C-alpha cells in the first residue's frame, strides 16, 4: 500500500485518516446534499432567518389598472448563473370566473432603488421574468384549475423563466458584488389580491426588501421589515413548472432514486455521491460553451445570419389589397398555390436526395 501512496510515516496515515473521516462526516451530514437544494450550490432559496413557516408578503388591494409590487435586493458573493426564479404564489379574493392575469418579476441591476412603473420596459432594467401568456410561460390562467376550487386560499409553486428584453428565454449571470433587485409585480384588477411567498429551508444574509404597501402612494417605496420579505429560489436551469402542493418541489437529493441503505449504508452512499456525482451546475456550464462562440467567426457567420433570416415574416404590407368580397375565389386559389408549392418542394427534396454527393 505504501508503494501506491506517497505516505511513508504513521503521522501521514493519521492525517489522511482524519481527512477521510472529515469528508465522510461532511458528506453524511451536510445539508447541502440533502433536500431540494440538491448538489447544486447555485440553486438556493432565500428566506428570512426568523421565518419557520410560510411567510406571505402582503399585497395591498388596489384599484383596477394599478399595480402591486415587492422588491428584494440581492448582492451575490460569487458569480451566479440564473435561469429561472421559483416561488410560491398565493391568489386570494379572486373574482370568479378567474381571468388570465400577468405577473412580472423584474430584475434591476446596480440601482439604489428599483424604478416603479407600470407594465412595460423600465429604465435600468436588465432582464425581466414574466409570467407570460405565451406557451413558454406559466400564466395565471394555468392556475385556473387550482384556483377554480378556491375557498379561502390557494397556494402553488411555480418557476418564472428569465426573459431578455427581446423576449427570448435565456440565462443570465448575477455578478458577484453587484446589486440586483428582484421586483415582483402584478397589475391588479379591482378586488384582486395576490400574496407571496413561501419560506424555504435555507437562509440568506445579504438581502433586504422594500415594497409598496397599502398606505403608500403609487410611486413610493416603503421599506418593509424582514418578516415581510418574499422568498424565492434562484435556479440555474430552465426545468420545472407549476408544481402543486404547499411545499417546494421535493426533488430527489441526487437526481436518482434515493435508496435507503440504513444509517451506515447511507453514510457510504453519501460519501460515494459526494465524491463521484457531479453537481448539475458543473454539468450545465458545458451547455454554455456554445454561447461563448456562437457569435464569433466562423460560427457567427452562420448563427448571426440565421438569427437575422428568422426575422423574415409576413409583415404588414404597404399595399392593402381588398379581397374580402372575393374571398370565395381567392381562398381556393391560395390553397391551390400552397399545394403546388408543397408538391414542388417534394420533387426538389427527392431530386436533392437522389443527387446527394456525400
Amino acid at each position, binding site marked *: 500500500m505504501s508503494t501506491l501512496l506517497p505516505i511513508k510515516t504513521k503521522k501521514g496515515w493519521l492525517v489522511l485518516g482524519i481527512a477521510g473521516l472529515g469528508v465522510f462526516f461532511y458528506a453524511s451530514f451536510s445539508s447541502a446534499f440533502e433536500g431540494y437544494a440538491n448538489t447544486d450550490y447555485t440553486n438556493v432559496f432565500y428566506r428570512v432567518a426568523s421565518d419557520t413557516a410560510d411567510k406571505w408578503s402582503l399585497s395591498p388591494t388596489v384599484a383596477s389598472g394599478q399595480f402591486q409590487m415587492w422588491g428584494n435586493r440581492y448582492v451575490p458573493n460569487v458569480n451566479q448563473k440564473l435561469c429561472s426564479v421559483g416561488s410560491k404564489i398565493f391568489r386570494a379574493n379572486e373574482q370568479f370566473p378567474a381571468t388570465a392575469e400577468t405577473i412580472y418579476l423584474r430584475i434591476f441591476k446596480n440601482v439604489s432603488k428599483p424604478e416603479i412603473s407600470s407594465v412595460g420596459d423600465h429604465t435600468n432594467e436588465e432582464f425581466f421574468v414574466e409570467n407570460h401568456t405565451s406557451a413558454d410561460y406559466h400564466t395565471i390562467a394555468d392556475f385556473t384549475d387550482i384556483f377554480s376550487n378556491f375557498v379561502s386560499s390557494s397556494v402553488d409553486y411555480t418557476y418564472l423563466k428569465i426573459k431578455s428584453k427581446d423576449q427570448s428565454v435565456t440565462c443570465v449571470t448575477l455578478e458577484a458584488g453587484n446589486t440586483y433587485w428582484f421586483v415582483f409585480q402584478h397589475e391588479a384588477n379591482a378586488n384582486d389580491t395576490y400574496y407571496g411567498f413561501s419560506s424555504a429551508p435555507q437562509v440568506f444574509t445579504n438581502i433586504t426588501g422594500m415594497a409598496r404597501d397599502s398606505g403608500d402612494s403609487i410611486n413610493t417605496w416603503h421599506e418593509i421589515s424582514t418578516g415581510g420579505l418574499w422568498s424565492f429560489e434562484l435556479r440555474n436551469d430552465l426545468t420545472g413548472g407549476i408544481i402543486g402542493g404547499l411545499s417546494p418541489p421535493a426533488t430527489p437529493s441526487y437526481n436518482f432514486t434515493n435508496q435507503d441503505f440504513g444509517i451506515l449504508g447511507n453514510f457510504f452512499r453519501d460519501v460515494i455521491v459526494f465524491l463521484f456525482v457531479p453537481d448539475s451546475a*458543473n454539468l450545465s456550464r458545458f451547455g454554455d460553451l456554445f454561447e461563448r462562440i456562437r457569435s*464569433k467567426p466562423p460560427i457567427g457567420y452562420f448563427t*448571426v445570419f440565421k438569427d*437575422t433570416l428568422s426575422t423574415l415574416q409576413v409583415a404588414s404590407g*404597404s399595399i392593402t389589397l381588398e379581397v374580402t368580397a372575393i374571398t370565395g375565389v381567392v381562398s381556393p386559389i391560395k390553397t391551390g398555390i400552397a399545394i403546388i*408549392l*408543397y408538391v414542388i418542394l417534394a420533387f426538389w427534396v427527392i431530386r436533392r436526395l437522389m443527387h446527394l454527393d456525400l
Partner: protein
Amino acid sequence: MITNFFLTIFYNFLLVLMLPITALSDVTLPANISSSISTASTYLGNINSVFPATTLIIILGIILGIEVFIILYKGINWLIRKIPTIN
C-alpha cells in the same frame, strides 16, 4: 468531488481550446441585410392576401434546413476522416 474535479479540468481545457475563437470580435451583419429582410417581409405582406406567403416562408425554411443538415453532415464526416487510422 472527484468527478467535479475532472470535469472542471476538462471544462477549462475546452475553454483554452476555444480561446482563439473567443478572442475574436463578434460577427455583425451589414445593416443592409437586415433592412433587405425587413423589406422582403413587407413585400410578402403585400401579396399575402392573394398568395400563400406563409407557405413560401415555411418551404424556404425547410429547404435551408435540409441544406444546412447536408453541410453539417459533410463537415462532421470531414472531421472524422481527419482522425488518424480512419478513412
